[in-house]
């Protein structure tokens, strides 16, 4: 039970019981799909889009849009959680598991930095990017992923807060050291597990 009670607050927007159990602490249920980005939406043409995996890997590689289209496509049903407090439940993306890329390049270190068109970066441990936990996605609810939600292609790591799912993904660098990305260097948590409410540095 909380120490502090807000006078006169009852909570008029409580989610149904069956959904409440799926909401991490501090999150609310959102039916829409709000957008949040730090600058103008980059316009990335599919024919110019490249996905580069480099750094500490046995064989660095670059994929084009046609190349990723030849990898095994899968539906990714998931719940997503944004650090700005909303969660979207039972949504569905479509794309390719990162495991297929790891098979090709053979990572040799424990950390990674994802980078985006537009200059955004976010750091993740390889453990969060392997074993069927992370994807490159270009479909949402059966439609092409729109640019404001990271299209043409974004990273999807649904078990972490959504800032880790870099929009307009351009590449991933595998590295020996872990160092902070764009938000992580500015006060946000290094790992960002919503179930532990790891929003900020001191969480």
């Amino acid at each position: 039970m909380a120490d502090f009670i807000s006078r006169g607050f009852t909570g008029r927007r409580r989610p149904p019981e069956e959904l409440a159990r799926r909401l991490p602490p501090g999150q609310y249920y959102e039916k829409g799909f709000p957008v949040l980005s730090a600058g103008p939406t980059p316009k990335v043409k599919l024919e110019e889009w490249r996905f580069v995996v480099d750094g500490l890997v046995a064989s660095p590689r670059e994929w084009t849009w046609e190349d990723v289209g030849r990898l095994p496509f899968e539906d990714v049903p998931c719940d997503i959680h944004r650090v700005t407090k909303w969660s979207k439940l039972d949504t569905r993306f479509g794309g390719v598991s990162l495991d297929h890329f790891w098979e090709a390049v053979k990572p040799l270190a424990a950390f990674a930095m994802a980078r985006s068109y537009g200059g955004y970066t976010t750091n993740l441990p390889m453990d969060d990017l392997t074993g069927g936990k992370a994807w490159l996605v270009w479909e949402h609810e059966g439609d092409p992923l729109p640019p404001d939600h990271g299209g043409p292609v974004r990273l999807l790591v649904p078990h972490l807060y959504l800032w880790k799912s870099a929009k307009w993904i351009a590449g991933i660098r595998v590295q020996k050291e872990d160092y902070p990305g764009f938000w992580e260097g500015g006060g946000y948590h290094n790992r960002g597990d919503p179930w532990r409410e790891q929003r900020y540095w001191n969480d």
Partner: protein
Amino acid sequence: MERLRPPAGWQIATVTSVKVETPTVKSFRLSLPAWQPHLPGQHYDVRLTAPDGYRAQRSYSVASSPLDVGEIELTIDRLPEGEVSAYFHDVVRKGDRVEVRGPFASRFVWRGETPALLVGGGSGVVPLMSMLRHRRRTAPDRPMRLLYSVRTEADVIYAGELGGETVLSYSRSAPEGWDGRVGRIDAGAVSRVAFDSGFAFVCGSHGFVETAAGLLLEAGYPAERIRTERFGPTS
């Protein structure tokens, strides 16, 4: 990005005043026991707790200058389905206590860069007001302009505080005698306020920010000099 100090933990602030800005917007001044200075543009989290432990959290931009030591002003737009905003509008009054935490890091901060063009839609003006107020008190000679899009005259927040640096744009209907056009902001409106250098700060609904950022790119602002903050769901 420069490292910012991590915010203090949750603290219980006291409401020292409530000001009605428009029919749907109120400003709340809060006194904080563990206040720390923010950068104009930063936000605070607010947490409400019901007697049974149910909690709701939201983020609100700070409207005041960090020179207001010990306190912050949060300006809150009452949203139709809002849980926290409705509580602030219907329940909170002077003397109430509310739980807050912040300020939080963001790329959407003004560190004194000028010229600075501020472009706000609706309650997106709130973090821009912190920049405007802070500049008035610290660097009144440095160039800063605000292009502020509102639906009607009744929707203008901080109406009594806007000066010669502000250009209003009415999207729904203009007051009598208004000689400008009515409608969404366009290239003409942006070209009248744009500087030929410096940074642009854009805040508003997602649609507003997409439109305004596009116009700024066309007006010659490089993407890395346009900082945006968006709120609200998309369709």
